[in-house]
């Protein structure tokens, strides 16, 4: 119990701390916020349940009024804004990534984490994201989906990075990957 609470709290803090880092520029010149890397790492490292809970805790603190989202945003306003669907999707994305890590034990960590991040961080995350944008902006679903297309290449790179980082953690400290225990 104590260990789970501490891990969930520390990973919620990790997502916030990664949001303080200025945008990373990836090898291909794609700018990404380290924050969404943090969300995916919650899933791949902590596993489905704990990972999703860590993301939920992070979102709760944002809602309570702390400026923890990348760029210093936060408060209740972000839950009324056009990106609300992505906030709703964050815990689902972490859960999916964690579930893939837990289920695909035969698959090497690198590939399971990449697959989990693509499925969680793109497929599962974009569904509520697109619905949210369509509702808030009064757009049709196809138009809202089209508006998201430019972000997919960056998210694929991010999924690759999540895989490399997770595999690095597994190598440096094998028992740190709770999703595989």
């Amino acid at each position, binding site marked *: 119990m104590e260990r789970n609470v501490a891990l969930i709290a520390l990973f919620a*803090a990790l997502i916030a701390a990664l949001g303080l880092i200025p945008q990373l520029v990836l090898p291909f010149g794609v700018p990404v916020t380290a924050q969404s890397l943090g969300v995916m790492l919650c899933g791949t490292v902590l596993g489905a349940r704990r990972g999703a809970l860590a993301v939920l805790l992070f979102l709760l603190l944002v809602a309570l009024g702390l400026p923890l989202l990348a760029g210093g945003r936060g408060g209740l*306003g972000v839950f009324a804004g056009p990106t609300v669907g992505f906030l709703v999707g964050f815990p689902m994305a972490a859960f999916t990534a964690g579930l893939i890590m837990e289920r695909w034990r035969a698959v090497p960590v690198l590939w399971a984490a990449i697959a989990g991040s693509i499925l969680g961080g793109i497929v599962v995350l974009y569904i509520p994201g697109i619905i949210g944008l369509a509702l808030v902006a009064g757009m049709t679903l196809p138009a809202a989906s089209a508006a998201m297309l430019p972000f997919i290449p960056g998210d694929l790179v991010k999924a690759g990075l999540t895989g490399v980082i997770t595999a690095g953690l597994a190598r440096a400290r094998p028992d740190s990957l709770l999703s595989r225990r």
Partner: protein
Amino acid sequence: MIALTSPIETPWHRLPAGPKLALLCAVTLGLVLTGSLSVQLGALAAVAGLYLLPGRDFARAGLWALRPLIPFLVVIFLWHWFTETALQGAGIAARLLAAVGLANLVTMTTRLDDMIGVLRRVLAPLRRLGLRTGALEIAIAMVIRFIPVLAIKGRALTEAWRARAKGRPGWRVVAPFTLLAIDDAEHVAEALRARGGVPR
């Protein structure tokens, strides 16, 4: 950690947090359900009034918080202009601005302790069902405490990187950073157990 609460005292600060949040929910729901242009524009005017009443400085702080919304508002307005009418675009942009503005206003005028107080009251029924809300409360406190701790450790990692290599530290610091968080969690868990565990 500095919350988004405005240091400028306004009459809205004195309203109790619970009813303020309930009102926000009701108004936001109403805005989502309405398609009437006059209601949308009227809501925006009313929210602007709520910001202007406490004074110019407060209104300016409120506008600053709405800055990230600008690109979205432009795109939404243009999209509706091209597919339907400019008027409709203005209505939907006004609705979005009013909803986010009102939510920001509640955040700006409600202290963190009061927000946590509302959360505790909302969770009280779950407590009776046997859920351990103490775990959530201690987790909230831990996150608030550990964000600055992790931020300092992250900065140290970045500086160590700069001392060894040229260029900006990229994603490579994320893995050791995550390990630091895991280590901290293990220590905190041990300390919690030594002090009697997670409260009920």
